[in-house]
């Protein structure tokens, strides 16, 4: 037993199902030190590690795992932070089975290394301690950068630019920083205090985070330049909720997932009436969609007292884009799934409150552009589901205000901002963008990657700009 490596990853300790469906506390409890070290023992330290190429920011996975094995947790976190400034968050929410873990060689004969869980473990160890902040380098040519939006893209860009010695101001429209990490992803999956700790770290880097400032309404991008900023990074995310566009969608009891999650997570409607924001969840809830957003909405509904919660998804389980771990958690918690069905019409009572949903069954046809098999309706297969609450989680598109108010900023017809992939540079001078506002709804780690790339090119841009200014002054 000692010689032969375990085929299975050490399971994640979790809150018991019976208990967790009644509270909003974190479901996954995290490894103990012993469990982390034991899991780290499984890594065979491949000379050509495949796992790294699965990570969008190329964390040196075997190196940090080796340090865990040696119980040098401080060194482990240092290795991770070279590439990833928000490891406590990524360890919790990265779709690891699609990324790093997908490529781990151990996955061929058993379970891949639990890379995310280990990353979370060392990040949590560090959070227990006072974090030391590198002093800001004194640059002879530093610039002033405005970062719009405080989601993972904006926070990462801000942190990297501050570390390079620039003056950074983050403008956030909501009353707290964090983007989807605070308004979307629920407490039981990503506790707010973890996000708060990461935000505090960034504040310690002397980044000024200003909330309640909606750029595009309060100041336009051009006005930011007039106010003395040398460059702007736009990381405003994809927060505009989509609706299906079928009859009855504006009935009472039908929420966009964003409204539902904002009420619950950002405004803490789960503590109503102690908190003032209400939410109404009935007995039987249907959530339309199959991504993380749908999973989160369904599991929140359950915790808010719904008796029966259905996920209604137009393809099959295999195609669901949600993180595998969360699909499993949802299944454990008793969420029911209705695959291969889409609603075509909502029905309401005399008070215009939703009472039901007419759906049509689907079958999978030829693969579409995304490579997934396209669902096609089966004629005459309509059926009615009785429901009293519906959450529409079919996707979001970029927040449009900045695009509407900025001259010279090129966008696609879906409203995403067009940038140079490598640099994050937009069509407008000095303006960079990244994250969901460029890619459309994607992942935390990809938004961070975009923030990093943009920070690097903004740095180069600022140095060039300052050098030119100096030359001009010199010549005069």
């Amino acid at each position, binding site marked *: 037993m000692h010689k032969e490596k375990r085929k299975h990853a050490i399971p994640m300790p979790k809150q018991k199902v019976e208990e967790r469906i009644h509270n909003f506390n974190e479901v996954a409890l995290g490894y103990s030190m012993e469990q982390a070290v034991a899991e780290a023992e499984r890594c065979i330290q491949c000379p050509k590690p495949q796992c790294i190429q699965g990570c969008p920011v190329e964390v040196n996975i075997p190196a940090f795992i080796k340090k865990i094995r040696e119980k040098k947790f401080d060194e482990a976190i240092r290795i991770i932070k070279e590439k990833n400034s928000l490891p406590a968050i990524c360890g919790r929410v990265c779709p690891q089975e699609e990324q790093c873990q997908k490529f781990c060689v151990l996955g061929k004969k058993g379970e891949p290394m639990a890379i995310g869980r280990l990353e979370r473990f060392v990040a949590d160890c560090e959070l227990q301690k006072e974090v030391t902040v590198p002093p800001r380098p004194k640059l002879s040519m530093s610039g002033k950068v405005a970062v719009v939006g405080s989601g993972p893209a904006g926070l990462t860009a801000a942190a990297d630019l501050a570390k390079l010695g620039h003056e950074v101001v983050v403008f956030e429209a909501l009353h707290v920083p964090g983007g989807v990490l605070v308004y979307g992803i629920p407490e039981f999956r990503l506790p707010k205090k973890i996000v708060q700790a990461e935000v505090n770290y960034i504040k310690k880097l002397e980044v000024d985070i200003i*909330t309640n400032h909606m750029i595009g309404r309060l100041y336009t991008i051009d006005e930011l330049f007039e106010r003395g900023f040398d460059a702007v990074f736009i990381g405003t995310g994809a927060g505009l909720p989509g609706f299906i566009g079928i009859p009855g969608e*504006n009935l009472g009891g039908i929420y966009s997932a*964003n409204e539902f999650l904002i009420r619950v997570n950002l405004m803490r409607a789960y503590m109503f009436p102690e908190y*003032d924001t209400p939410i109404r969840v009935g007995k039987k809830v249907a959530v339309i969609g199959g991504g993380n957003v749908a999973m989160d909405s369904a599991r929140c509904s359950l915790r808010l007292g719904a008796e029966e919660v259905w996920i209604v998804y137009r393809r099959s389980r295999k195609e669901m884009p949600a993180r595998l771990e969360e699909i499993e958690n949802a299944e454990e918690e008793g969420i029911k799934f209705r695959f291969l069905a889409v609603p075509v019409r909502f029905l309401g009572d005399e008070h215009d409150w939703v009472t039901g949903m007419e759906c049509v069954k689907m079958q999978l046809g030829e693969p579409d552009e995304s490579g997934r098999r396209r669902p096609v309706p089966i004629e005459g297969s309509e059926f009615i589901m009785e429901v009293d609450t519906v959450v529409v989680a079919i996707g979001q598109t970029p927040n449009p205000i900045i695009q509407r108010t900025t001259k010279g900023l090129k966008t696609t017809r879906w409203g995403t901002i067009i940038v140079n992939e490598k640099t994050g540079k937009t069509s407008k001078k000095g303006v960079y963008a990244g994250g969901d506002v460029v890619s459309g709804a994607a992942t935390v780690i990809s938004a961070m990657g975009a923030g990093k790339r943009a920070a690097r090119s903004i740095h180069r841009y600022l140095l060039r700009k300052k050098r030119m200014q100096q030359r001009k002054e010199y010549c005069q």
Partner: protein
Amino acid sequence: MYKVLKKAELAPEIKLLEVNAPEVAKKAKPGQFVIIRIDEKGERFPLTLAEWEPKKGTITLIFLEVGVSTRKLGALGTGDEILDVVGPLGNPSDIKHYGSVAVVCGGVGTAAAYPIAKALKEAGNQVVSIIGARTEELLILEDEMKGLSDELYISTDDGSKGYKGFVSDVLRMLIEKGYRFDIVYAIGPPLMMRATANVTKPHSIKTIVSLNPIMVDGMGMCGACRVTVSGETRFACLDGPEFDGHLVDFDELIKRLRVYLSEEKQAAELYEKSRGIKRA
């Protein structure tokens, strides 16, 4: 933090607060609103900018106490602080020279209409204002509206002042008398805006209404504020709050405003209990 600098009671349950918010004051335009969160446990809710003074750095909010949030706000005094004020939000009114304009206001809607009427006057329009309320003591901003209007009409539901009836009845009367309006602004409760739009429709007078659906973020992220205009779903905070009154589905708006009725009642009772208020 946004400090309350001045407080006044304009009518029973209608309060005015002057709040220190220099950046908002510099950028505000007629027709725009702010979203407020009073304290850590508060909800986000919208209020129209009734006035602003860029030099002083202040904004003025005028509101009717209807539920917990507006009552909590009404309980603040000079020197107290509001945790969050975000704005200006929403699209500004389209202020230009139209010719002759009727500004029709119901109840606390007069506060929202006031800066628009003022700007329309400054843009060279002939402004006829009609302000109304349930009863005389609930009328607000009468002097201010009189000061800027070429003509001012008043109506009360009970006839205690001015014409007995609704503001929309006064508008109908004026039109029948031969008044010609190039555009009508109607701001107030949904029923009043619907009635006004119904008066102008047969005469094809363009009618702008300012919608007040339930809002959460006020920046286009939740869809709580969705309204049906011309058969299409629009977000009032993003695409509005002003829309063509002849194209708005008012029935839906009214129903959607009632979605949280039972929770609002529950919260109100709790609030009254916590403050030792006895129900009448």
